[in-house]
């Protein structure tokens, strides 16, 4: 994406309402600036948007729930939302529930890392090979969750 491209968050206002069976999925990353898992969350969501499900995913900068013009709070009312959080504080899930509506699915990356047996010290600011690999794995988990929403009929798609 180039610097002057239209921001992705604008797309949330352009999709159908849930009642009309949306063709998009909302994937919301936590901010996570202070945690390595937050960096993995943001990068994983970008991978899904750019590489694995281009055109299917809309997202939002989480702090816009407070700083935006109010339209952002329609997010979970218009699309099924997968919240991707770096840690158990669950800012993406809780902020969505507080300001917009229920999430359809929630990923806690710190919990995933435990399940995967990852005990290495990770960097929030200098992601290397391991962090990149983990972002790819989390991206695949997000894609799995998107596919589940499609299989459940919560998202209308022509083809994958």
């Amino acid at each position, binding site marked *: *994406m*180039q*610097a002057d491209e239209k*921001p*992705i*968050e604008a797309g949330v206002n352009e999709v159908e309402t849930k009642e009309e069976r949306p063709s998009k999925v909302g994937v919301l*990353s*936590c*901010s*996570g*600036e*202070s*945690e390595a898992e*937050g960096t993995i969350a*943001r*990068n994983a*969501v*970008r*991978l899904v948007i*750019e590489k694995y499900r281009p055109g299917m995913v809309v*997202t*939002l*900068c*989480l*702090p*816009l*729930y*407070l*700083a*935006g013009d109010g339209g952002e709070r329609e997010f979970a009312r218009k699309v099924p939302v997968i919240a991707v959080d770096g840690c158990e*504080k669950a*800012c*993406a899930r*809780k*902020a969505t529930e*507080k300001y917009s509506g229920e999430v359809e699915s929630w990923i806690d990356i710190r919990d995933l890392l435990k399940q995967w047996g990852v005990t290495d010290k990770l960097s*929030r*600011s*200098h992601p290397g090979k391991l962090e990149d690999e983990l972002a790819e794995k989390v991206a695949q988990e997000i894609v799995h969750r998107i596919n589940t929403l499609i299989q459940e009929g919560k998202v209308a798609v022509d083809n994958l």
Partner: protein
Amino acid sequence: MSKDKVYIIPCSGIGKPTASVGRNAAYRVVDDMRPDTCDTLCLGLLTLRDEEAVSKVRDSKVITIEGCAKDCARKNVEVSGKTPDISHRVHDFLKEHRDLKPESVLDVGEGGRKLTDIIATRLAEEADELAGK
């Protein structure tokens, strides 16, 4: 984390390369250039009005850096009861260095990295001043 630290708080921008530059600049300062005097926190905690995070920003010097004109970092800090001591937008730096346009969100490219360095240097200098050094 100490309340005496200067908090460098970038926006959480996920859709724009300028947000990546702002966040990378903040990381450069808090992790590489001034790790003893600066830190950052998750902006989402302020969005949720997390008590500990709100207390930190209220009682500390704060610099915000934004990836776009929506000013999420500044506004979320202000809602927490604190006016940032200094607020920046990456676009203001970009206006002064039009040849350093960042390329993409995941990889800001060579120009974006140079812009990151310029912003980080400014942030570190300002953090020193706020810390009384």
